[in-house]
């Protein structure tokens, strides 16, 4: 008699076993939904390089050119007047800057770049510089 009662009661009390995955997955998706739903990180304004970073990279490119004295390289040095380079060297330096910043500078603009300052200005105003 007691055994019959016991098993009947146990049958009522026994909790059906659910697969372990479902609750965990539900929990994860719930957390994901809460975290990402309202917040979107659209930052197109950070594409432009920091001016100081541009200056540093330009100067390092100029410094690594053979025949350039490191001490004379300043953020506004003139390639031909201050550094004693000739026009061929200037073209080479502009090409090296093109490679560094992954740009393609048209000939007309490249002819105007003849000092570090102008190079920095051009690169910072170029939308594709990276």
């Amino acid at each position, binding site marked *: 008699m007691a055994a019959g009662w016991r098993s009947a009661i146990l049958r009522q009390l026994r909790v059906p076993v659910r697969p372990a995955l479902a609750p965990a997955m539900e929990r994860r998706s719930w957390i994901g939904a809460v975290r990402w739903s309202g917040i979107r990180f659209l930052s197109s304004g950070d594409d432009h390089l920091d001016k100081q970073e541009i200056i540093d990279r330009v100067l390092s490119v100029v410094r690594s050119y053979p025949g350039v004295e490191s001490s004379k390289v300043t953020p506004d040095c003139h390639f031909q007047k201050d550094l004693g380079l000739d*026009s*061929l060297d200037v073209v080479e330096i502009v090409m090296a800057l093109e*490679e560094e910043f992954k740009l393609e500078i048209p*000939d007309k603009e490249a*002819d105007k770049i003849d000092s570090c300052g102008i190079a920095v200005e051009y690169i910072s105003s170029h939308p594709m510089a990276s």
Partner: protein
Amino acid sequence: MASAVGSGLSRAEAFSLLRSLLRTAAKFSDYNIREYVRRRTIDGFRENRGLTDPSAIASAFSEGRSQLEIAKRQAVVYSIYAPQVKNIMELNAS
């Protein structure tokens, strides 16, 4: 080059030819050939800097242009068999 006047060839054209050659050099996938093309163009232009005779200037220009055509074709051909591994000189010194 500084005194390249006459027959329509100007300083600007010389620079444009130089830039085209250097840009074509950058397209090579092989480090050695890339560096050679760069070196050779710079040396070639430097060597012909002081030309004054218009015919000599014109012949130098035409030679440069033919070399440019050759380099462009070869860049395409070499890219078909690009090396799989980067040349050691291209790896940044760590």
